[in-house]
Structure formats: C-alpha cells, structure tokens
C-alpha cells in the first residue's frame, strides 16, 4: 500500500497572521510557519496504515523554501520520503492552481493506492483541495473521515455528519481527507528526528511536472483579493463579578439588548 499525503506549510495561528502589502497574498515570510496542525492527522493515519501492512508514505508539499520545514516534520514522524514542489511562479496560486500542481506531482510520484489530506489548512481553511484533487485525478472522493479502514481494495470511512453518522465506501485508489477526531498524531521520537535527516527529499519545479508558469500563480488565479481590512478589536464590554446576582445581571443585559 503506497500512500501520498499532501501537506501544507502555514503561518502559525498563534502569531499575528497578515497579508502582504504588495500583492494581498497571505504573508508566509514575515510570520513563523509550520506544518498545518490538521495535516499531522493525515500523516499519522497514513503511517498507521502502512505500519499495519506494508508500503511507503510519501509527503508532498507545494510552497516556498520554508515549506521544507513542513516536510521535515512529517519525515520526523515517520514518512519515508518527501517531494517539495517549489517554483517562484507558484507564489499567489489559488486553490484550483494548487490542486493542479499537487495532482501533477502525485501522478509523477506514481498514482498511489491512497491520497490522504487533512480536513482543511489552518490558514485558508477552504477545505476544497481534497475535492479538487479527486476531480482532477478522476478518483473517488471520501472526505472528513473520523474512522478509516482499508481492506480488499476498498476504503471504508465513518463520517459524523450533522444529521447522521455515515459509512462511506469507495474502491482504491481514492482521495481521503481525515478530521482531527481520527487519531492522536505522534510526536517525532529522537530516533525519528535523526532518521529524517537521511530521508530523500526531491525538489521539483513546474517544468518537471510538465506545467507552465502561465497556469499558476497570482496572475493565473481565478479570483482576486481586492482588499483586506483588519477587524477592529472588539471593544471591551462590561464585566461583572458574581456576588450572588451574576445570573440576574446577565439576564438584565440580555433583556436590555432585546434578546428576551
């Protein structure tokens, strides 16, 4: 069973995330970045599957130089090899272009039995790349798994929907996204950290994927950010200490605001 996990390097959610003043793209240089937390669940799930059978986990990312940090973390966790697609022309790519580059990279790796992703990136949070990948690769799409099993050429997942808990089945190869409910990602061990230094990281440019600069990047994006505005901090409201009448005061506030 060979698995490709798509991962993303994102600005740390604990830092002051912002946009570039020059082109309205997400600032990935002036802000500390890391492997998107939600992608750790995808790496973990892939590792569990190959550990229970056999095969290799390849992590793939599309991003600037610093995105190598995201790959490094995944390799430290136990992934076998990594692919870093980087090319100056990719800067500013939207989700359709990113999914195009990822899809071509996955084909070049050799279409695996499973493509695993996280449920969303923690920066853009669109949750659309898994569906776009399935569309581009022509593979079944099985998303938001909170349980996953692979058996006899099929993948079966459980998904907790609002109205129902569903069991979904698809034949392999397939694209699967996993939620943060599916497992508890491991911390890299000392051994894992040392071993990661020797693992292969391939670097591919657009030309290696048969893509042209005109297909990606800010100029080729199908949407344009016209402006970004920092939301003014919420004005500190009224805070009362409960001295036996906290609940009454709360109800009075709600009444004054016409919620009752």
């Amino acid at each position, binding site marked *: 069973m060979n698995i490709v996990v798509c991962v993303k390097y994102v600005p740390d959610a604990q830092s002051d995330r912002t946009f570039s003043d020059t082109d309205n793209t997400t600032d990935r240089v002036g802000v500390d970045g890391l492997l998107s937390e939600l992608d750790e669940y995808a790496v973990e799930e892939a590792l569990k599957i190959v550990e229970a059978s056999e095969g290799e986990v390849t992590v793939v990312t599309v991003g600037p130089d610093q995105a190598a940090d995201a790959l490094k973390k995944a390799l430290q966790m136990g992934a076998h090899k990594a692919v870093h697609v980087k090319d100056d022309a990719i800067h500013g790519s939207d989700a359709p272009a990113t999914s195009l580059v990822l899809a071509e990279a996955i084909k070049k790796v050799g279409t695996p039995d499973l493509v695993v992703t996280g449920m969303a990136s923690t920066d853009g949070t669109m949750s659309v790349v898994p569906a*776009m990948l399935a569309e581009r690769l022509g593979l079944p799409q099985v998303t938001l798994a909170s349980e996953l099993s692979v058996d006899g050429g099929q993948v079966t997942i459980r998904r907790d929907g609002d109205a129902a*808990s569903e069991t979904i089945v698809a034949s392999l190869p397939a694209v699967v996204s996993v939620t943060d409910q599916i497992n508890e990602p491991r911390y890299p061990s000392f051994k894992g950290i040392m071993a990661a230094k020797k693992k292969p990281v391939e670097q591919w440019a657009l030309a290696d994927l048969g893509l042209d600069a005109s297909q990606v990047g800010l100029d080729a994006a199908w949407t344009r950010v016209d402006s*970004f505005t920092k939301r003014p901090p919420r004005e500190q409201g009224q805070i009362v200490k409960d001295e036996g009448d906290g609940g009454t005061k709360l109800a009075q506030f709600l009444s004054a605001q016409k919620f009752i």
Partner: protein
Amino acid sequence: MAEVLVLVDHANGTVRKTTAELLTIARRLGEPSAVFVGEGFETVAKETLAKYGAAKVYRVEAPEVTDYLVAPQAEVLAQLVEKTSPAAVLIVSSSAGKEIAARLAVKTESGLVTDAVDVQAGEAGGVSTTQSVFAGSYSVKATVTRGTPIVTVKPNSATPEESPAAAADEVFEATISEAAKTARVTESKPKAATGRPELTEAAIVVSGGRGTGGDFAPVEEFADSLGAAVGASRAAVDAGWYPHTSQVGQTGKQVSPQLYVACGISGAIQHRAGMQTSKTIVAVNKDEEAPIFELVDFGVVGDLFTVLPQATEAVKAAKG
C-alpha cells in the same frame, strides 16, 4: 436579466433557512433559479422557494444523484452552468456545499470563493464577496476574475426577505458519469433530534467548555430558556462530554449568531475562529484572566453552576 443558480439545501423537501438566505442574496445579482435535487418538491419545497423569489426551479430527480455524495451534484450544476450561463452559482457553505463548489470550479474553470459572509453585485459587473479570515481577525473583499463566479455563503449572512415569484419548475435531465458514482453511502445512522435549532443557523448559541466539568445540564437549560442551539468547545468534545458535531471552532462549526454565550470556555484562538464574528458575545467564566473576556460585550466572572441557573430563572420569569 441573467439567472443566478442557487443549489437548494433541503431534507425531503423541507427547505433550510440558508436557502432562503441564498435566494435573497441571489436577487441582488440577477434572477434566482433554484436547483432542486431529490424528492419533495411539489409537496413541500415549491411554496418556500416561490416565497423567497425563485423565478425558476430546475428539478433533478435521478436517484443516482442523491445516492453518491457530492460528485454527481457537481456534474448537475456544471451542466446547468453550460445551459444557462448564469451570473453566479450560490451554494451554502457546508462541508458538502464546499466540495460541490470545489469540483464545479475545476469542471467549469471558474473562480471560487468559499465562506462568504456577504455577496454584492460588483461595480464592473460580476460579484464582490466579503470573507472573514484568520480566525475573524481580517475582512477580505474578493472578486471572481474567471468563468462563472461560484460562491459558498455562510449561514446567517443575510436576512431572508420574501419576494413572491413563480417557482416555475422544469425537470432537468442531467447526465451522470460512471466516474461520479464511485463513493457511496452504505449505512446512515440518523442522529437523535434534540429539538433545538441547528447550530450554524441559530440566532442564539450557548456553548459549554472545560468549566462544565462534563455536566452540560445548566448550559442546556439556559439554552432552552432562550430557544438557543447548544455548542461545545474542543476541550469538551475531546473529553467526550459533547458530540463532535456540536464543536464550535476552527475544526468544528463556524457560527455567527446574533448572540453567543460562552460558558466555562477560556477562549483559545481555535475557539475564537469559530465564533468571533458573532454580533453580541457574552461569557461566564470563573477565571477573570480568561482570554474570552477580551471579546465580550458582557461578562460574568463567576461559577457557571450558580450563574446560569439564576439567569435561566430570570429569563423564564421575563418571558412569563
């Protein structure tokens, strides 16, 4: 006037409020045409769709469309986009809605905006969207520059306005490819109904966190006195105290109600990402240093096990 396609979100014909919101937004951009997939149109849905301004309704009855998750719905919409050349396609920003939109965008080579909180006609034609990003700390305006604007819109982004229209329906014969029928639902266990409003659609949400210690009774009773939905922080969900489908935050639901009440929730960035755009925010927490108090319009530093029951009684008394 160009058509604006609105994918109807419904359960056996009962149209969700989010669809009324989308129809209301669609009227700013052109003439709303609803796309109705499944059963229950004549008996239930037609009246609602007509009331909120659907001039036309494209009905897709093929059972294979509903049996196979999102891929067939994306094919239906792609074929309708080709047939009608709409000014935009509007879909609710649910997980399924975003996936349908994603596949539709690739199929039609069209720009996609997800999680819009506002949609207006653009100055130079087209569509201008507003999104709230980075845990609600920025507001972003964007335009689709290629193809048919495909926009997924968050619940509560517009107040549904009635505007009676014909809802003239026609059956649309969509062609569903074999490739779209590869992932199928083999079992579906319905969740027990709580009788409370749906979390993302509710006007009031009351959430509980670590401070409940696992006892959600005071949170639920307060919510019920207000007719509110009940949410939970990730800490409460991870502890197994409340179902994951009720989680508010980055990896759960993003809610934007008129009133959000956080009970025993400290207010980590991941939680803020799910509720920061609420109109009015109230918190009850024992810890006066809790970051949630930086966001609130009104806060009570106190024990939720005494504050909430007292507030519940006061609300009930006020409502008579």
